Structures are given as C-alpha cells and as structure tokens.
C-alpha cells in the first residue's frame, strides 16, 4: 500500500515538476534579487556592529569562542544564521537593517 502510494505520488510529483518554460527564469531572478537583498542587509548590520564596536557575531570586540564561532554547535553539527543570531541579541539591529515585510 505504501509502495503504491509512493509510486503514485512520484508520478504526480513529476507532473508538478514539469511546469511552464518561463518558470526557472523567474525563480533565478528571484534568487538573484534575494541574494542582493541579503548582501545589503549584511552590509547594514556590519556597519551597525562596527559603530558599536561589536564583533561579527554581535559580541564585544575581543570575544573568543569555542571553535572560533558561536554560530556552529559542535555537539549537534547544527549551524545557525549569523543575522538571526545577531537579531536575537540585538533587536534594535533588526529594526535598523531587516527589510520590512511587504503588506498584501
């Protein structure tokens, strides 16, 4: 039963994957746009941190970390996003730099 469901789902999924030809182009331009937005946001945050004499992770300059970074947990292998980490520590950095969500 599971196998039949799986097969059926894959077949249907194949149909979903075959979309209109202009789709990848849209997706690519969206990715490029998101990358540019992220770069702008990172630049803003780095400027914000430098003005306050904080390191790249939002801690006072001169902070040392186990493994060299607070973003990677060596016990779990899990990596967290730098901006998320900074925004959690400094909500005002988010106000200053995070793009405001568009109203629908």
């Amino acid at each position, binding site marked *: 039963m599971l196998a039949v469901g799986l097969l059926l789902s894959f077949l249907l999924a194949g149909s979903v994957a075959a979309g209109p030809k202009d789709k990848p182009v849209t997706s690519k331009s969206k990715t490029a746009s998101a990358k540019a937005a992220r770069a702008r946001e990172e630049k803003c945050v780095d400027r914000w941190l430098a003005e306050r004499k904080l390191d790249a992770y939002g801690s006072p300059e001169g902070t040392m970390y186990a493994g060299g970074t607070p973003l990677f947990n*060596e016990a779990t292998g899990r990596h967290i996003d730098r901006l998320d980490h900074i925004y959690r520590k400094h909500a005002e950095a988010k106000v200053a730099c995070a793009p405001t969500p568009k109203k629908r």
Partner: protein
Amino acid sequence: MCRTIRILAFVAALAIVVDLIGHRLPLRADDVYRVASVRIPERGRRAYRPGEVIVQFKEAVRDRDASDMMREAGGRTARRSDFGPRYLVRLDDGFEIADALDRLRTMPGVDFAEPNGVARAFQRVGYFTPHDPFYTSQWHFRMLDSERTWGIQKGDPSVAVAVLDTGIAYEDFGPYRKAPDFGGTVFLQGHDFINGDDHANDDNFHGTHVASTIAEATDNNIGVAGLAFGCALMPVKVLDNEGVGSFFMVAEGIDYAVTFTQNGQHPVKVINLSLGGDSSSTSVRQAVDRAVAAGVTVVAAAGNDGQGKVSFPAALPNVIGVGAVDGRKMKAPYSNFGPELSVVAPGGDINRDDTGPDGVPDGRPDGVLQQTFDPDTAAEQGRYDDFHYFFVVGTSQATPHVAAVAALLYRQGITQPAAIKAAIENTAEDLGTPGRDDTFGHGLVRPALALRGYGLNQ
C-alpha cells in the same frame, strides 16, 4: 483544483520518503549520540574471563560424575572439549572463580583446574593496538595510522599539552567529577582564569572532549584512546560555561602555560587552542610570540564558519592553523579555509556515515569520538558527572589531533616550534589541488611519517 491535488501528493510523497530515510538512519543531525553510559574504571588489564574456569578430569572419570563435580563447584553450564575430558565451565552468579577452583582441585577425579585466561593477539612489530572497547569506533585515529604512530612513540609525561578551553573534567572537586577514562592520565596544575582559582574544571563539555583526543587514558580496557596518551595535560580555563572568553583571558592562559615550572623544568611544550574569534589582538599575538620564542608550539582551530577566512589566532604565521576533513578526507562543510591554513585533521561530519569497518556505514555519525559529560545535563541541572562517549564535530576536534602529534614530536627530540611545524606540514598527505592549497593547507597530518623523520630530516 487539479494542481492543488498534485502539490499535496508531492508533499505527501516527500513526507513518506523522509520518513523512510528516517527509519533507515535513525540518527538525526541534532542527536548527541551516546555510545555507552559511564562505567566504573577497572584497574589494569583483566587477565581472566569472569565466571569461567577450565577443568580437566582423569580419563577414568565418567561424564555423569564429571557433571556432578562441576555442578558441586558452582558450574551452571559446561562445554566439553572435542579432544578429551576437558571442560569450559561457566559458573553460576555468586560463585567466585577462586572458590570453584579450590573445590575442584580437592576432588579426586580432577586432573587440573585453572581460570580461563584472556587470549590476546600478538602486537604486530612496529605497531601498537590498544584494548579500549570503543577504539574501533575512533575512525579518526585509524585515518591517521594511529597504531603505527604508537609503535614509534606513545608520549611521556615530561611533555605536556596545555588545553586552553572550558576546562577539563580532571578532578573530583565540589560538583565536578574526574572523567572515568582519565584514570592514568597525568595532569599538571592548571588555572581557571574565568573564576580566578586553581581548579580549571570544565562546566561546558568542550574542553574535556578536546583534551580526551590528546591524552585519554589508553589501553586500559575502558572507553576510547588518546593520540598522545603518554603525555601530560594541563587544564587552563579561559572560556566560560557557554564556551565564550576574551583576548585577555587567552593571553593570560598562554603566559601561564609557558611560564609554568615543575622541578625547574618547563613541561608545557604545546598549547592547544580549539577557539578563536573574528578579529585580531595584539595581546594574544604577543603572547603567542612569547610562547614560540620559549620553544612552545601553538596549535589553533581554523574556525567553523565554513568561510574563506581562517579565525584568529589560527591565522598567525607562527601558529599551526588546523582545518577539518570528514571521513572521506573531504573538506568538512563547516571548516574555514584560506592562505593561513597549515594542515587538516579529522573533524568529522555528523551528517555522514562513511567510517564503519571496511568503509561501510555503521549507523553512527562520523564525529570524533571521545569522552565528556552530557552538556544538556550540565546546562539544565548543573551536573558535571553524566559522562558518556560523544561524537562531536568541528575544527575544535581536528586541532587536538595535531597538538598530540606536536607533543609526540617533542618526545622524539625535536625542540623548536618552527621545526615541529615544518615536520607536520612537510609530511602531510597532499589533498585537493597538488601542492599546498587554501582548502587543505599542506594536507592531512600523518603522524607516523612525521615521527619517522621523513620530509624535514630526510
């Protein structure tokens, strides 16, 4: 409508596939995998198999009488030899081997009785195989040809490695406990720069795991092995319980280790820094310079951001900056890289399983396996006695492999940090682009070759 159904079907299929994968590989990336719970250390190597004796009866003794005699001596089951009236007797719970032997030896039909000794494989010439039960899961030592390394050099307490980290579980003090598999490891007097006292106990987990890779008690029938297990360790606490410290603390820690004397000697020859930051510091740089000038080798982690920027102080030219590879000798995804990278060592990848026996998956994540206490129990309950063997990944775990090699090289007679660094780099296994590259530096450290004097002293 039709499109919605298709999308829902796709999501359902994805969920089923993920579920199936989940059953095949039950370990998740966010699991801290425990190999075994803490065990009470046993002194020395066990000479006899517990609860077993061998007894040989005289030819005239009938099997039924032999059976009665064995039962009377405490035997629960017995296996007869194919070649005569010799039996392997397993004793009932509560019966001591000595008592059983005493009884059997007084029985008239018994030719002899003896404990069942543990047979061990002969050591191959030039190799040393430790009898630590989880050593076979330490793929990271296998990758470095550890048994050949130990055949050349196992280290000596006259050479010490200072571990500047979150501390080490090295003593029973207050709520802190000595890790069971540090039984025979020699510790020098350390210092806690976070709390300002002489008890550099670990309250995080990180430092204990790092220190274990260097000098876990080895060949003691407990847990796992350490790469320079004959060398001494010095715990220096410069990071707090969250693994965070400062330039000032690290500089202080380096100076402490370098100036420490015992019996008029400076035993600290290597400093392990499984730590770093994103900016440089004059105080740390000068402390490193003083260490190197005093003949101490400094080894530091390249960092875990997965970016083309080696962390400070690993980026300093007189420090051995260490990156990490996984079980396939591929760059670990988190490992920093760049022109300052010196070498790489196994740091693992918890999302992969390539390192079982004969290269087949063994259902265990490819982390560096060492002993430490459970970080969750420590953080949530303030308990530092919940010891297990953990697979942990990172350049923090790669670094102590190289620090251990440096310690072994000192024991071999090399005394200058520049020569130690050259010996390690010149004998490394070239990975990636031929010659030195920014991804692997000079390549994967090869302790046995470095110790034999290839490269530098060729």
